[in-house]
């Protein structure tokens, strides 16, 4: 057991957790932030992507202890005053999701891309989303949504 201190979506949390607690488990089960999804649990699908200190990572492949003291942003932290983030708006407008399971990770990953590359090409978007798997949409609308968001951010 150890004390985990994290700033998640602007709020400070301090909780005791066993050393083998994954960041994804910590977010979902200790902080009840269930927007972060666990898909494959073997670090392939990317449904669990969150931002830690400004960079995207797969929260199922990081220990909570390992990111102790960091600032974390999850899908719940993207909206401002009840208004969706431009990336969320774009996914909604362009049908960048069907079942929605991969969406939190897809959106978090895409937001990280636009933080680093404001006007990515289609190829750059596809390359960046390498670690996010969607089994419904066929990616076309996802890429279109990221492109759309890049004009609004």
């Amino acid at each position, binding site marked *: 057991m150890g004390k985990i201190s994290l700033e998640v979506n602007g709020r400070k949390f301090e909780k005791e957790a066993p050393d083998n607690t994954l960041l994804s488990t910590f977010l979902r089960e200790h902080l009840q932030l269930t927007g972060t999804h666990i898909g494959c649990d073997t670090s392939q699908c990317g449904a669990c992507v969150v931002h830690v200190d400004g960079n995207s990572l797969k929260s199922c492949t990081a220990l909570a202890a390992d990111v102790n003291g960091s600032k974390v942003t999850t899908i719940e932290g993207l909206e401002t005053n009840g208004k969706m983030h431009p990336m969320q708006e774009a996914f909604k407008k362009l049908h960048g999701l069907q079942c929605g399971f991969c969406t939190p990770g897809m959106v978090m*990953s895409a937001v990280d891309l636009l933080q680093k590359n404001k006007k990515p090409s289609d190829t750059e978007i596809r390359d960046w989303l390498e670690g996010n798997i969607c089994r419904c949409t066929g990616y076309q609308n996802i890429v279109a949504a990221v492109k759309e968001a890049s004009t609004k951010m």
Partner: protein
Amino acid sequence: MKDFNYHSAKDSKEASKLASSSSAFLAGGMTTIPSMKLGLATYKDLIDIKNIKKLSGIKVSGKSVTIGAATKHVEVSNSKDVKKAIPSLSSLAEGIGDPQVRNRGTIGGSIANNDPSADYPSACIALNATIHTNERKIEAAKFFKGMFETALKKGELIEAIEFQIPEKSSYQKHPNPASRYAIVGVYVAKHKADVNVAVTGAKSCVYNDKEMSKALSGNFSSSSIDGIDLDSSEMNTDMHASAEFRASLVVTQAKKAVDAC
């Protein structure tokens, strides 16, 4: 995942003091954590070395590029110094896994793990790297011992990897479309005295292809290795590629690398 004790070491000395026969060093955790989750590995203690400041960073001198063991792939691919000194090393880092892996995974972790399909071991062989540990310096040619095996002893920690700057070099890989691991990756580096052709993904461990090295040392042109028929008997066969296909890919990628130099 089975329980363990997590430790964050302040320096290499503390890290190796904490090490035991049932411990592992934790850097990016890109292999360690999934292996533990799948039950392929269990440890009593995980010793996090990411917070050891000395282990991160990139230094370029006239002859070499030295990268701290806990330096992340994204830091190597974004480094202007690396791009200038050894562009092929920068693009190798850019092609590892996906952005989330590159944001987290480290060069030292990749080398210590010595996955037969990992990218960095080929860079170490091609660029005549010296592996600096907390105990000694090891030449890359003596470091990679076999599948997931290295010359590292228990409690021995990689601190930095020193790459020799070549005259010309290129890394070409045929990636697995899902994982981006190399089905075959070939790193060709032309040094003043000789040429290295380091191959990853083809056999159980990275190796320097002597036949192609010799041919290219005589005449550094892709035509000098055109038509070389490599022995595929020790090459890997799996659902992605047969040994014969890998043997053919090694030559194709080597030629591509020479042409890209």
